[in-house]
């Protein structure tokens, strides 16, 4: 049964969503099957593509809407929200 979920998160990293967090996002999504997209300032991109995430050039405190759709949509959403909260392991 395919679920569609949306959540609003904030970028907490001081340097914004740069290369390392983008690579971390893609790595975390690899084992999951759902389609995941980020919407920032009216632009919606595929979160499985590093280039697309980088293109957003999202800085600290930017609001991003995460959308997950698929059989493991809930798990994907949990992983993503936690990752944003934990600043992708950056200090």
């Amino acid at each position, binding site marked *: 049964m395919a679920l569609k979920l949306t959540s609003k998160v904030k970028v907490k990293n001081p340097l914004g969503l740069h290369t390392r967090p983008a690579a971390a996002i893609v790595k975390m999504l690899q084992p999951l099957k759902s389609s995941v997209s980020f919407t920032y300032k009216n632009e919606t991109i595929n979160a499985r*593509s*590093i*280039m697309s995430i*980088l*293109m957003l*050039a999202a800085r600290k405190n930017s609001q991003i809407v995460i959308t997950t759709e698929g059989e493991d949509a809930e798990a994907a959403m949990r992983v993503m929200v936690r990752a944003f909260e934990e600043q992708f392991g950056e200090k």
Partner: protein
Amino acid sequence: MYLVQHLYEQHGKVLGLELVAGRKGLCRRIQKPEVHRPGLSLTGFLKNFVNARLLVFGRNEIDYIRQLDEKTRFQRLQSILTHSTPAVIVTNLRVPKALSMICEQKGIPLFRAKATATSLLSRIAFLLIEEFSLSVTLHGTLVELFGVGVLIQGESSVGKSEAALGLIERGHRLISDDVVRVKKKEGCLIGSGPELTRHLMEIRGIGIINVAHLYGAVCVRTDKQLDIVIKLEEWDDQHFYDRVGLDEKFIDILGVSTPYHILPVKPGRDIVLLVETIALNHRLKDMGYNSAKEFNTKLLETIAQKRRKKKI
């Protein structure tokens, strides 16, 4: 968000615009791709006056308001210059004091242009329509082969970027890797890449590379008309892949029907060669030669001939 400032910066030179008043209003939004000569509204007939349009004052308008008495002139101008008027452009004439005073006071950018009202109307309308045209961001890699714009799509890790890299090595051009912005222009689709990631490609195991630096300026392009879409898929034994090529598939992008091909990926298949062949075949079809159809026609004739011989 399209501001008057953007129009001035991007097209001011081409249109010959000179800012005369209302500088503080440059941050005003252009909400619609509409430009309009006030005409009848200056006579006080405001029944059908539509707000939030760019206004162009030509000789007719200037001569008309000049022959009004000062009080009426101010009144009429005040009624059409509102908080939602993005900007006013006067053609190559002396700007009436009342007009510049009201624009300065209300903070509406007032420009003077070196052109006739008719020419301004059509040129600005064209520029605004292009600016406001439909666009979408697609996941895929856009390359140019033999003059054909090919959008390579597929799941992450199916090999889009690797195929594109192979094509670039063979002398073709990259427009954008992984993220393509497509805009509809005059019925055609124009694809481009975001400036930030221009010339960059992301290859698993290698990382982010700059192909312009590696292969030279000849292998990149800023934008290209999107002619065909090729979807790379993992080979699926259950799926029946097109073996004849008579029925052409299409995909709808922003309302434009675009030729669509599904290419199964399997170790040992030279995807780069196959993508080149699809592009070449498309070029041939564009020139009027459809190999599959021609062959089928010939086959049907041969069958018909054999039947005739049998009857005799």
